């Protein structure tokens, strides 16, 4: 059996080592930086920023007006499929510039998706907290609402809004804010009941903190990880749902355009003009992917025990 002399070697090593943690070398630092900010996360961050930039500057960036029709140039392919440079991403079935439409769509879809995702998450979390805090009949009532929302086809809810309130963009965003809250509520309720059983929340409440403070400052960050998953799932769902609802006469309507709309009208051209469907789909997938990746990364960052 191999016996290592105890003293000498250990001593030598102990001395060779500068006290405390060794100051990291350059590649070491780079490695750490890449660990905290993996390239994928950086890429996703960049993409999200780019998309947000596009959303802000859509008007300035677009080479054409998004509704400008050129029937003679309809369905011309994008430049990478052999099209001309006058329409980089080609044109649609009315000869409108796909790039310009894409820019306008990004602006409107992100507006809708971001705001309504936030609305739905807020509503869901709030109701989840309420249920977990009061239990009893309040909880039962909220669970009834959850089941109600889950069983009611969203089409009918949309019809309700359409029938009674009409269709304006703010109203539509509010309606989409009703999408997916039930999932957030159920998750929040479950996790909060569990959290309430744990010491930290009870401890702060016992110090005299208001329930508001307990839930927002302490419980919320602790249940955020699963919520983030739920919210990042809602995000693309809202974008796609919008396209479905625009067929009901709700939401973004021609001549205005949205990613969902482009995908919806592009589906019949999958074989003849695939770019009409694939380009907006790619934007949706990439953006959702970025948002989800950032969400997961944020989730890990929020958890100091995982760092």
């Amino acid at each position, binding site marked *: *059996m191999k*016996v*290592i002399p*105890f003293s000498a070697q*250990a*001593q030598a*090593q102990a*001395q060779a080592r500068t*006290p405390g*943690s060794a100051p990291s070398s350059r590649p070491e630092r780079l490695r750490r930086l890449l660990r905290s900010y993996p390239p994928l996360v950086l890429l996703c961050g960049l993409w999200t920023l780019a998309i947000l930039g596009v959303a802000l500057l859509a008007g300035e960036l677009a080479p054409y007006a998004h509704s400008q029709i050129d029937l003679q140039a309809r369905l011309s392919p994008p430049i990478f499929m052999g099209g001309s440079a006058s329409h980089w991403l080609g044109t649609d079935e009315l000869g409108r510039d796909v790039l310009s439409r894409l820019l306008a769509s990004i602006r409107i879809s992100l507006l809708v998706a971001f705001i309504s995702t936030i609305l739905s998450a807020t509503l869901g979390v709030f109701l989840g907290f309420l249920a977990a805090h009061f239990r009893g009949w309040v909880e039962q009532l909220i669970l009834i609402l959850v089941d109600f929302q889950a069983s009611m086809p969203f089409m009918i809810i949309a019809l309700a809004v359409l029938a009674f309130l009409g269709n304006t963009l703010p109203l539509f965003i509010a309606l989409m804010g009703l999408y997916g809250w039930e999932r957030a509520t159920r998750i929040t309720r479950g996790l909060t009941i569990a959290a309430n059983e744990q010491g930290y929340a009870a401890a702060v409440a016992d110090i005299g903190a208001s329930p508001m403070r307990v839930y927002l400052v302490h419980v919320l960050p602790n249940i955020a990880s699963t919520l983030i998953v739920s919210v990042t799932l809602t995000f693309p769902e809202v974008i796609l749902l919008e396209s479905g609802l625009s067929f009901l006469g709700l939401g973004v309507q021609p001549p205005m355009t949205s990613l969902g709309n482009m995908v919806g009208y592009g589906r019949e051209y999958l074989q003849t003009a695939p770019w009409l469907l694939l380009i907006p789909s790619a934007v949706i997938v990439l953006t959702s992917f970025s948002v989800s990746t950032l969400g997961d990364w944020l989730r890990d960052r929020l958890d100091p025990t995982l760092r």
Partner: protein
Amino acid sequence: MNTPHNGADALVSIRNLRVAFDDGKAKVPVLHGIDLDIDPGEALGIVGESGCGKSVTWLAVLGLLGARAQVSGTVYLRAEPLHTLRGDQLAPIRGKRIAMIFQDPSCALNPVQRIGRQLTEALTLHRALRGAPARAEALRLLDRVHIPDARQRLDAYPHELSGGMNQRVMIAMALAGEPELLVADEPTTALDTTIQAQILALLAEIRQDSAMALVLISHDLGVIADMCDRVLVMYAGRVVEQARSQRLFQHPQHPYTQGLLGALPDLHRAPERLVPIAGNVPEPAHMPRGCSFGPRCRQFQPGCELHAPVQRQIGVQHHVACHRAGA
């Protein structure tokens, strides 16, 4: 009994065990080269300040530290190298040859499985028992750790048992594999003295019956004194002193050991103000140069900060890592 440091026929022999954790910003060394040997059937006590690496040492031996820990050094179990084994290769060792009882029993048991199932799982694994025989054996183990009403407890969930009972279930589970070495990490902290006494008596009994070696980690010097043949004192990731227990408690040599014993309150003397060791435990990331106890040491003298002291033998089976001790 052989002397430490030759490790020739030791049951477990650890050499220069180092562990560092990567916290994402920097590598924080936690163990700075632990050497220790345990003979078959021996009871070794480990004491030391909280956070000095007592638990980490044994988690490292069993490969349970997770991906962010960087472990180096050698570990031999009866001359078999364990440090070369990775992941699942260690599984046949764990529980079967070296079993461990964790610090907090109520967190360490799976909350959603019945006690009986968790016990029989270990029995199936190590003794190939299944079905009714496994259940009978589980029952016997529970009886062995003096759990009253054992038959019913088999179907209980951990949260339905008191802390003391969970502690005993953990012990029963550790005993299921009939291990050669049992590492008990603070097995009695959460218990009152009467139950503590029961459990210690139980451990002693099992050692007698099966010649199992025991590593007992505890803050309670009384418990250590009661149970162990030999005591190891750790400070900041190093072993600073080891001796037979009587000798250690009577003639502590390292200033840290002396400080520990001096800080002990006494039940039978009129209370006086306690005397803690001055200063604070160094952070693992900012270890002082040289002797890590230096800044808190009453006997500090120039030279102590130059290099870390190595262990030297200063008496029969008594080793100290201090520049001044025995001088």
